């Protein structure tokens, strides 16, 4: 990896839909190798923040820096070069429904590389076996369960061995066991890929189990209230809203991990 820490810097970011401001004055840094959690209640703009970072929607103002480069000021090919290094696991999986799993995972490879078909086939079945779906190459997304779809989507996200892996509510719609298995898979993949992880979630169990750094967005004050390791925040943060969220409204500051 060529990018040195800090990997992603968000500076004075304002998010808005038309004249409706979602969040303002967001400033935080994601260091290389972090497992960075974006947390906050429903409707505070977590997913929108992800869309800004992934080049899907330009922010109302402010900037997002990948290393030394200001993403939204880059020309198209510069943005494409950065996106080439990202992988995303969408909330709904977002596998392309008209393609088999193998084709889903092969598409980023075909688009970005000139690898011969035989090698792509090998890569695809290897990625599928990494997420425990070996032998499911010819299945269509509709033929799989929700958890399998999530894992297949993860295989697609890591198809290009990304430096940055984004997760939008990875455990949404999964039972606690599947959610934990997915968490463990995410951790293992990070260790082996050396990627920086950015996770949008409000699953407290996941937050304490995996996060090394975080930012807390608040819908009422429309800005971030805290940033740092969630366990440290839980012990030391003085902001009532953050503590309330982290303790699930109980005020009990003991770390509860599953």
């Amino acid at each position, binding site marked *: 990896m060529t990018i040195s820490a800090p990997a992603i810097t968000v500076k004075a970011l304002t998010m808005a839909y038309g004249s409706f401001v979602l969040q303002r004055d967001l400033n935080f840094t994601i260091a290389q190798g972090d497992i960075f959690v974006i947390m906050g209640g429903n409707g505070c703009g977590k997913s929108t923040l992800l*869309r800004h970072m992934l080049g899907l929607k330009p922010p109302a103002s402010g900037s997002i820096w990948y290393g030394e480069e200001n993403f939204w000021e880059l020309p198209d090919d510069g943005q494409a070069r950065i996106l080439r290094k*990202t992988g*995303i696991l969408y909330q709904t999986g977002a596998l*392309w429904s008209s393609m088999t799993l193998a084709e889903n995972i092969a598409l980023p490879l075909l*688009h970005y590389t000139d690898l011969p078909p035989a090698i792509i086939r090998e890569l695809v079945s290897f990625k599928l076996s990494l997420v425990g779906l070996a032998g499911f190459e010819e299945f269509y997304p509709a033929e799989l369960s929700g958890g399998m779809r999530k894992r297949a989507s993860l295989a697609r996200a890591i198809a290009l061995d990304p430096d940055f892996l984004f997760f939008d509510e990875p455990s949404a719609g999964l039972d606690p066991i599947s959610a934990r298995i997915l968490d463990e898979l995410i951790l293992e993949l990070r260790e082996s890929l050396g990627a920086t992880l950015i996770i949008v979630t409000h699953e407290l169990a996941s937050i304490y189990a995996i996060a090394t750094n975080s930012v807390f967005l608040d819908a009422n004050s429309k800005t971030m209230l805290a940033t740092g390791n969630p366990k440290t925040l839980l012990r030391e943060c003085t902001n009532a809203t953050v503590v309330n969220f982290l303790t699930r409204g109980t005020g009990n500051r003991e770390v509860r991990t599953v």
Partner: protein
Amino acid sequence: MDDTVRHLAFTSEQLEDWDTRLLIFLRTVITSARQLTIEIDLSGLPPGAKRLLSLSEAVPEKTTYAKSAQDFLVTRIGRTAINLFAKIQETATFTGEIILAFVNLLIGKSPFRARDFFYFVQACGAESLPIVSLIAVLVGVILSFVGAVQLQMFGAQIYVANLVGLGMVLEMGALMSGVIVAGRIGAAYAAQLGTMQVNEEIDALRTIGISPVGFLVLPRMLALMLMLPLLCIYADIMGILGGSVIGVTMLDLSLIEYLEQTRKTLHLSQCGQGLLKSSVFGVLIGYAGCLRGMQCGRSALAVGEATTSAVVTSIVLIVVSDSIITFIINS
């Protein structure tokens, strides 16, 4: 309520059962009692009702999503104009993207999947044949009935062949196949792309750097543009056959006679006119279907609206463009 009332209490010992209507009644009473600064004692109420009452009062005012008060007329006109401008901008961008994707395809830089293209060719073309056959034959039959009644009065029933042939080739073949395809394919495109929008599949394409227009829209549009003129020719032939059935069975014409008369009437330029129309229709239907699908919001309701809107837009565009082309050619 009398001004002398100072204290309000409830008794519910006789009360056997109650539901939400009691709570609504109580709330009205309590609100007006408060306005009159009457002291209220709730202790006589059933415990459940008391809890629910206090719950209903504990809901905080939502400030974030408060609806703005009715806007001034000028504000609303201004906002409509801005929205309209944004719509036009969006449509222009989409058109530009399609042209760009087409250029990219020609220079071999598009992520175009031949398999998708042939799938849509099959869906638009071969799978439309049964319904197009049925409609075109019936339209031919109708045209020939309408003509036969009039022409028989002059003993000129042979000219039914002219009427049906010209009617199908100039107008009805292109129009009918266009309307059928708008309903079958335009709607399907809007629904497919709309659902992909809801499932974030289109975002997923964008973030790996693949243009959704080149990858999803272009094969759909090209398949339609290629297949609709062919369907039009097919509809022309089926319509003429339908007309000939009436000619032979009801007007005592022989099949050879009928077809020969049709052949004498039709010129290649007239067939060209129908083909020109259906080529234009193909572009318009594909465009409307894909545009509505790509503009679709992120809910099931939005997919339904996109589908309806795609069909309505297609049919309006078909009829309007048809009259414009006819007007230009005949003037």
